[in-house]
């Protein structure tokens, strides 16, 4: 049961967990830590997790948030799971491109496309 302070919205569809951010700005370190902890709990809750993180509504993202995404990615891989990112607007995508993280993560235009890409 999500708490009222939750920084993410979670939807489960079959074997896929879909996550969206509550906040438009993923900048504050304390919030990022909370987001990381919440998503880690989702990852740990199922074997071989399939997770889509949607960036719809996200307007600003810091390097600390990127670090947390990497940590989440490693955690998912450690559980033989798969991670996809979706709905990344062009300004945010540029941050991924500058840091070359667009090569590390599988990024899709929409959550539907991301879900279809799971093996």
């Amino acid at each position, binding site marked *: 049961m999500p708490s009222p302070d939750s920084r993410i919205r979670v939807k489960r569809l079959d074997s896929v967990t879909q996550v969206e951010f509550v906040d438009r700005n993923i*900048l*504050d*370190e*304390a919030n990022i830590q909370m987001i990381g902890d919440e998503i880690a709990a989702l990852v740990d809750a199922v074997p071989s997790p399939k997770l889509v993180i949607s960036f719809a509504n996200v*307007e*600003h*993202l*810091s*390097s*600390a948030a*990127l*670090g*947390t995404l*990497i*940590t989440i990615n*490693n955690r998912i891989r450690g559980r033989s799971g798969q991670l996809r990112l979706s709905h990344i607007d062009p*300004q945010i995508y540029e*941050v991924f491109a*500058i*840091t*070359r*993280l667009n*090569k*590390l993560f599988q990024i899709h235009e929409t959550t539907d496309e991301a879900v279809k890409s799971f093996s």
Partner: protein
Amino acid sequence: MTSERSDTADTATLAVPNEPKAIDDAQARLVASLERFEYPKASLFAIRLSLHEAMSNAFLHGHRNLPGVPVSLEFEVDPDHVVITVQDQGEGFDPASVPDPTLDENIERGCGRGLLLIRAYMTSAEYNRKGNSLRMTYARPPRAR
């Protein structure tokens, strides 16, 4: 805080404590000046991210042994240029010692991307000799005709 506002430029000097509201207020102050001079959305994104990264680095690294000490933020915004200086009271560091986070061997590191992003988005970003003061400049992109 000191600030001046004229027809041609906004300037401000702030002492920013490591508190979310104070950091947000400092950001908002700068964004208000950028909006006053009608900088485009892409510029607001670039400058806002760069300021956030610079201040995060100042608190996290510069003030790691100085909890409770504010970071100094100065900025000047005019119609064509933005100059931002973030200074901490720490011992400084050598920016050349920061590993390139885009190299294959570093791509999965959890941190170390702040300076890369600042340099990508700002027109210039230079540390002083000691490495505790970062001066960033931003030149407004040419206006579309």
